[in-house]
């Protein structure tokens, strides 16, 4: 069975949402935190409802609705989301009130909306969609787990036209804590300089990206999602290479067949060492792209990479802003995405032109 990406919609720190040029006007940020550019929500959510919603819910719902609209689908066969930290704004807000009000006279709204499945639930509620609904919350493979669920549902024949997405919001609280934990650089820098500082830490990001997957061939499809794989805590760089080669071999491909590799470089020395080792070996002769200077680092950023890959294939062009070195094939047909999350969770996705 072949699985296709019928449509995708992304809300990110770049102009990616709606009918916009393909990353030709990248936005420069100075600092260590990239915030998503939020659309006018009134096209997607009743303003009365929107006032009570946190940003992750609004971003998630808007991206999901745009994705369905682009696919011409009114009722998806399943709604599946991935988010590592979930509805942080509401969680922090309720936790703060518990402490400040000493557990008395607490308003319930923040608690109600704090559950990790709120985005998927709100989409179902707005569509009156009674179909399969699931939410994965596993660190750097939250979105990958959701995607695997969607792929299995299609293969099992239990659902079609599956809406699957990755969402994450960055709150002031999370940014402060993650900065203290040393995830981000200690001084402000331009996101365009992310890969040039050779230093510890990255920049934080957020976003909501949705996809509509089905098994129907159509000229409207963006790309074929050929295969995905995750692996956990590899023993060495050689082990990583072996995993990638085995993944390609399982799909009857070698690295020479891949026109473009999108990697998860994020400017952190230790993080990028894994990719640089590959640049000197398995990826030595490949054309490469990176994306985290555009959307920032966050646990479901692979959804942004998948949005990028789908568009690269459909539009037949590689935006200059993502090129990591020379791009030999200007309109790639086969794209491999490889990302790792703190060298624990490694993720591969393979896309092909339809």
């Amino acid at each position: 069975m072949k699985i296709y990406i019928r449509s995708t919609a992304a809300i990110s720190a770049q102009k990616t949402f709606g009918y916009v040029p393909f990353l030709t006007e990248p936005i420069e940020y100075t600092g260590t935190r990239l915030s998503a550019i939020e659309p006018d929500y009134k096209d997607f959510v009743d303003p009365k409802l929107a006032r009570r919603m946190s940003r992750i819910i609004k971003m998630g719902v808007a991206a999901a609705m745009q994705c369905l609209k682009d696919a011409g689908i009114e009722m998806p066969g399943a709604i599946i989301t991935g988010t590592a930290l979930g509805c942080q704004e509401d969680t922090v807000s309720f936790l703060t009130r518990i402490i400040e009000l000493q557990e008395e006279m607490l308003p319930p709204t923040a608690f109600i909306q704090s559950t990790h499945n709120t985005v998927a639930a709100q989409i179902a509620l707005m569509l009156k969609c009674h179909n399969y609904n699931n939410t994965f919350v596993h660190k750097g493979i939250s979105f990958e787990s959701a995607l695997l669920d969607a792929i299995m549902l299609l293969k099992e024949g239990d659902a079609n036209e599956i809406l699957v997405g990755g969402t994450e919001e960055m709150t002031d609280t999370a940014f402060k804590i993650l900065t203290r934990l040393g995830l981000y650089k200690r001084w402000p820098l331009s996101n365009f300089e992310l890969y040039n500082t050779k230093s510890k830490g990255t920049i934080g990001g957020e976003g909501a990206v949705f996809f509509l997957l089905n098994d129907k061939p159509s000229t409207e499809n963006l790309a074929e999602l050929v295969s995905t794989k995750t692996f956990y805590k590899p023993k060495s760089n050689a082990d990583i290479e072996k995993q990638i080669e085995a993944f390609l071999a399982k799909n009857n491909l070698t690295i020479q067949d891949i026109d473009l590799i999108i990697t998860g470089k994020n400017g952190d020395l230790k993080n990028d060492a894994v990719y640089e080792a590959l640049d000197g070996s398995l990826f030595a002769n490949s054309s490469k792209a990176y994306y985290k200077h555009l959307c920032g680092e966050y646990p479901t950023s692979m959804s942004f990479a998948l949005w990028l890959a789908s568009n690269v294939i459909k539009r037949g062009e590689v935006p200059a802003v993502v090129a990591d070195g020379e791009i030999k094939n200007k309109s790639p047909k086969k794209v491999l995405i490889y990302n790792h999350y703190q060298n624990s969770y490694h993720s591969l996705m393979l896309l092909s032109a339809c």
Partner: protein
Amino acid sequence: MNEPVYIAGVGIITAIGNNVAENLAAFQQEKAGMGDITLLNTIHRGNLPVAEVKLGNEALAQLAGISSKLSRTKLLSLVAAREALNDAAIPGFADLRSGFVSANTVGGMDKSEDFFVDFLNDNDKGKLRNVFDHECGSMTEVVGDQLGISDYMTTISTACSSSANAIFYGARLIKNDILDVVIAGGVDALAKFTLNGFNTLMILDKEYCKPFDDHREGLNLGEGAGYVVLVSDKVAKTLNKPLCCTLSGYNNSNDAYHQTASSPDGTGSYMAMQGALSKAGLQPSDIDYINLHGTGTPNNDSAEGTAITRLFGPDYPPMSSTKSFTGHTLGASGGVEAVFSVLAVKHGLIYPNLRFKTPMEDVPLTPETHYLEGQPIKNVLSNSFGFGGNCTSLIFSAV
């Protein structure tokens, strides 16, 4: 894809016992796990009963064999997951493709609550070791590492249906030939966050809960963990002991009615139960026992009861809510109740629904109120419904 998936072992920890044997003994003695709050530092102590696991973190850590400084969520999870894996006793486990699919709703919130008190005063304060590992996925990861899981781990969070979804996602990983063995279920520890959250919704009973009773006033929160070990047909043939049962049916449907309330006619519950029956190729009359979601809130029990009436009426199988023993363990409840359902099939048991006196006026169903042994039980239906309209039903069937 259509090969059966078997359950080879179970593990559990709840307010009524720290392992399978203790939980079964509590059912036999009809002894509930609720009591006053002793572990949480909260103003609700003495006012709201909860169903605490009867071990402090030090004792739990000793049982689990990991540090007592870790979140209680991890400690509970490891105790139950390890019992399940030991119970399954799978020959050559290390050489099989193994996975751990666990669910929870608030991760390491017990530790984050401590962190936040200092952090709120000064954003540069608060011990980072209490917060760095807060996220739900970290609970799964620490336990998975301890169990020696190398191939795949993930975490599901769909409120109170979380671990039922984890169990059938695990089964599908086997059916899709991605894994051979999956330990699946879920965990949640009591936290001030959830206690206050449910309290603001005014659905906590100040007395011990009375599921499906006309005078029910709400739920009691509980804590715990429950896991089943799912194995492929191929692995099943290598076991040196009898299988517990199969996971024959499952379904996830959404009520799509309200973020927290169930629709009056229980649309989502009805679809989940019906979908699970259809997946298993069974008729309602084939079900020998229903382990109800049965939280004890007016809304849930009325909606679930209505859905059961529509699907099963007028001939009802025995049914009961084991939450009358364990309290509502939230993200763990689907796992905890899956373990009870598996044991019901394995040992021919029906558990009592404690404190039931008067059938609900709108849906007059009568749950079983006594502990029954030696019952001819082939198929058990287990319901788990949650916030966000997430409704999941599982069916466990004798081999």
